[in-house]
């Protein structure tokens, strides 16, 4: 428990518990909305990272880390890996790297669904941004501790 980072505010602490899941859901919404409408991996990653950051300010670093579950550095690595891999399927279709590949599915409940490599790339960006921002924030907070 670090005194600097625990804003002793009951209101903030209570709302943080509610805001965290809401913001995370919102970030996923932004991520999925991204390709054709405003949104995307970068902004979604920032929202998700700020959700965890808010949680850190309201409670403390350890609970924030517990909520995150993964090391930020691992998120960074996986995100980069997803980004690179998203370019590969095009090669098997005989097209240049990073050419978008789309798959149209018709699902019983959801209706028509379009899935493609840009989404994988966006998920990669999403993870990289979360990992990058939180790596910086948590390191700074720990140094302060």
């Amino acid at each position: 428990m670090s005194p600097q980072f625990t804003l002793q505010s009951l209101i903030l602490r209570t709302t943080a518990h509610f805001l965290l899941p809401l913001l995370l859901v919102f970030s996923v919404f932004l991520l999925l909305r991204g390709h054709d409408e405003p949104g995307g991996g970068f902004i979604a990653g920032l929202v998700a990272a700020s959700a965890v950051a808010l949680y850190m300010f309201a409670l403390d670093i350890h609970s924030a880390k517990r909520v995150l579950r993964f090391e930020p550095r691992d998120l960074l690595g996986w995100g980069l890996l997803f980004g690179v891999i998203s370019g590969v399927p095009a090669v098997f279709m005989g097209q240049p790297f990073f050419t978008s590949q789309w798959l149209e599915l018709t699902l019983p409940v959801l209706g028509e669904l379009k899935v493609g490599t840009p989404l994988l790339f966006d998920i990669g960006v999403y993870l990289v941004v979360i990992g990058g921002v939180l790596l910086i924030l948590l390191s700074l907070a720990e140094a302060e501790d």
Partner: protein
Amino acid sequence: MRLEVALPVIIPLFFGALTLILWRWRLAQRITTVIGTGLMLLSALWLLSATWQDGILVMHMGNWHAPFGIVLVSDLLGAIMVVLAGISGFATAVYSLTAMTKRHEAFGYYPLLHLLLAGVNGAFLTGDIFNLYVWFEVMLVASFALLILGGERAQMEGAIKYVTLNLVSSALFLSAIGLLYGLTGTLNMADIADKLSYADNPGIITVIAMLFLVSFGIKAGAFPFFFWLPASYHTPQVAVSALFAALLTKVGVYALFRVFTLIFTQDVDYTHEILLWVAAATMLTGVLGAAAQFEFRRILSFHIISQIGYMIMGLALFTPLAIVGGVFYIMHHIIVKANLFLVSGLVYRLKGTYELKELGGMYRSHPMLAILFLIPALSLAGIPPLSGFFAKFILIRAGVEAEAWWIVGVALLVGLLTLYSMIKIWAEVFWKAQPEEYANRPVHGSAGSGVLYLTIGGMAALTVFIGLGAEPIYQIADAAAHQLLNPSLYIDAVLGER
């Protein structure tokens, strides 16, 4: 669609991400890195042989066609550079198996190494000038972090100069791109070259050309912007020094070769005359700076500068033979220079210092190392039959044919002074007896130095190979120069026949 054009960029990115995931397992990181750089070297060789057989190869990334999308283009110069990056990357990775300590690895050495290689290869292959800037930045970000790996005081000091100068260079580069875009409305290098060939305002084009010259001159370590280099290259871990010495300045040289053969050829009398003066001044200041130094890696750093002068001389003379000489020089230099730094690292490992006056007696105690030092050192000075002789010979012959007598004189004098510097290192480190008071310092000893010998020996063998097998290398350089001097080949390959 040619897969091989993108592989040298994709492979290091992929393995870089992989080493990031494997952060906690040191052994896995090391194995991944050796495999990754090895695969990168193989893909680079594949690219070179494909480019040699089929001419300039192009990949339109994401299937967005030029001039609107970003293209990767592999002409012979680019492919040669990628192979050299592969060789030095692989050598560094193997050398690091022994030379890198756990503490330094914990700062993220392996992911950064891959990131640097991805940036370097991207810069060599991109056909888009703004994308070139992006790859430069990727490379610089990685190099900033590698430079301060370990976080010692001297490193910070060197890094501040390095960062500041390189940021200035990047700012100039970006402004020049902005002006060029304003003038031509395109960022694709082939398209820019095509549009500029019927532009009628040579004044502003020359101004932009000079902005590029200053910006790339800083990156290449050319006169008068070289001082960041000797201030920083002797501070990081030696494997990092070797990789920097091999690749970073050469990316600047490559960029100069690219823009001053493809884009800015309107006013050759003016722009290339300036390049020639820059070349002469770079050669001289570098070699004179080296003569004044008595620290192993500082001497080598100053020699990088003087060697950059030779490469720019090849570009500046702008005759077919001179360009061949410049390309040949780059090939020779990257191998030799990386190797000399690797030797200095092994000497440090055995003796615990880089100071010449504290060293000595290595010829008696490590005769094998002495021979392995002599090969790249004499090659650097241009002694036949090693690679440096042919590199210098072609350049000087080109100078004579162009009747540029004074630059020939400078080049010969600098060659002689280089020999002086190398003999100085030889005499101090290997020949004289080591002063008593420095003889018994605690050192790493020879444990694990087999890998280091292997790397140094391999690079030395390459130097001998380039020297003895100069003919095929010459032919590749010749074909590369042919492509450079006929920009229409590049333009047609990227934009298609019009």
